């Protein structure tokens, strides 16, 4: 935080725009990658932008009440708020935003906000598919949150800090990524990311053939457009968080300076997040869908073990 509100506002707008653009392009790339894996040509990379424009251009929208209106907005706001507490680049003027000591704990709470808002909105539509989807989603959260929290706690113990900026600073000062310093915590977090992205085999929430897209089944037109925007931004949030925590983050306050430095940092960020994003995507291409209890049981087995091992590693090998 610099204290100059104009710079902060510019930073917020820039960060949100960056997250939106990158997130939407990643969504398009995912569709392209899936198409190529199925020996298809696939849609153009910018297809998601066209979809969004079309959805926002719908002339009628059916609503079921106030909370149905608010749910997509809630998802969007939760995604942008979570984004603002993550240092997208280390150092520099615009992209660190509101990062503060203890933001890691704050983010843990903030990251489930969107799902909860969505659950309230879906409840009002009264669609049974939506209700089943929400109950599955909350079950899945109880699955992947536990290894995720364990891995974060392991890092907090190992480095005696709850600040993302401190962790990034440590990694860039020593040149050792936390993925190497505590590999078990990294593994547990990676498994949790698989669950967070809701791609196969964990696409039990919005399974199109089973639940008619679950929670989203009653949201069309502009609501769906807002949900799509929120989802894209939130995908970027998750990727940046894992990159910051385990893969050294991007940007450098001393080495990368000036406009060229910011650009170089963004390129580094895009490369790292893209490689990370390809993990859930490529697993999603080849995997069929789990049932709900299989998914939860999966997270309570190996990822949980890795999380516990990460804590032991943090306590004894430090």
């Amino acid at each position, binding site marked *: 935080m610099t204290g100059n509100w104009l710079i902060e506002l510019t930073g917020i707008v820039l960060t949100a725009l960056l997250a939106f653009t990158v997130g939407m392009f990643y969504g398009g790339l995912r569709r392209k990658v899936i*198409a190529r894996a199925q*020996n*298809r040509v696939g849609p153009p990379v910018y297809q998601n932008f066209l979809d969004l424009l*079309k959805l926002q251009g719908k002339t009628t929208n*059916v609503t079921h009440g106030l909370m149905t209106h608010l749910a997509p907005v809630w998802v969007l706001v939760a995604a942008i708020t979570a984004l603002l507490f993550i240092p997208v680049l280390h150092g520099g003027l615009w992209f660190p935003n509101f990062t503060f000591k203890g933001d890691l704990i704050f983010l843990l709470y903030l990251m489930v906000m969107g799902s909860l808002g969505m659950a309230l909105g879906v409840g009002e539509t009264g669609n049974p598919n939506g209700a089943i989807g929400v109950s599955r989603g909350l079950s899945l959260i109880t699955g992947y949150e536990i290894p995720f929290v364990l891995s974060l706690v392991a890092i907090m113990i190992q480095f005696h800090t709850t600040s993302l900026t401190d962790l990034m600073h440590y990694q860039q000062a020593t040149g050792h990524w936390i993925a190497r310093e505590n590999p078990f915590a990294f593994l547990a977090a990676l498994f949790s990311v698989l669950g967070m992205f809701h791609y196969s085999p964990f696409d039990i929430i919005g399974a199109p053939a089973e639940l008619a*897209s679950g929670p989203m089944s009653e949201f069309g037109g502009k609501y*769906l457009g807002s949900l799509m925007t929120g989802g894209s931004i939130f995908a970027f949030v998750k990727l940046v968080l894992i990159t910051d925590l385990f893969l050294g983050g991007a940007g450098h306050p001393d080495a990368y300076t000036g406009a060229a430095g910011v650009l170089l940092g963004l390129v580094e960020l895009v490369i790292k997040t893209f490689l990370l994003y390809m993990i859930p995507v490529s697993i999603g291409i080849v995997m069929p869908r789990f049932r709900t209890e299989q998914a939860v049981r999966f997270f309570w087995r190996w990822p949980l073990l890795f999380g516990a091992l990460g804590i032991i590693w943090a306590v004894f090998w430090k």
Partner: protein
Amino acid sequence: MSETKDIRIITRPTKEQIRQAQIDFAPRCTAAGRVNDKETQKMVQYILNFARKHSLFLLAYGTGCGAIEIPATLTSRYDAERLGIRGAATPRQADVLMITGYLSTKTLKRVIRVYEQMQDPKYVVAFGSCTINGGMYFDSYNTIKALDRYIPVDVYIAGCMPRPEAVLKGFAKLQELIQNGNAGNGECYRKNLDWYRANQQKVIKNWDFPDEYNW
């Protein structure tokens, strides 16, 4: 043994009767009679129509045998997704309602409800001969013969049954109509609701639709 012959006497309808029938049974919402508002907000409409035509969420209502052509159109062999056409899970999210084949009067009821749940602008693609004139079910007692008496149709794809190439050709026609501002009949349907409701109630015997719809 006397020969009995069933002789049906057919009287020619008068000119007045023909004219009245033409007015009564002509489909209400067609592309020809539309006044498009391209002159107002030209640029915005152009961009929106461009996005609309390249992003068609398809709700394939698999009523008849034609449903088997849709998976082939959407998957690897013909890959409709490269044109921006992808399946939608629910009517709320869908842009295109595709009626694949004959419609029994029982199914027509569901189709009408699905159509009314979709959000504007919405398009209907009628697939196969059965939706045009009844096809091989032309004398069936419980299928409808012409779909556009009951819901407005944008594009017909003729054939029994049309191959995926024909389906893609039909979508190309729909895209052309969308770009010119000539597709999407939701507004017209609401305007002529009395006429459509009268036709629908003629064939649907156990009519139990709610009077007021939340579109």
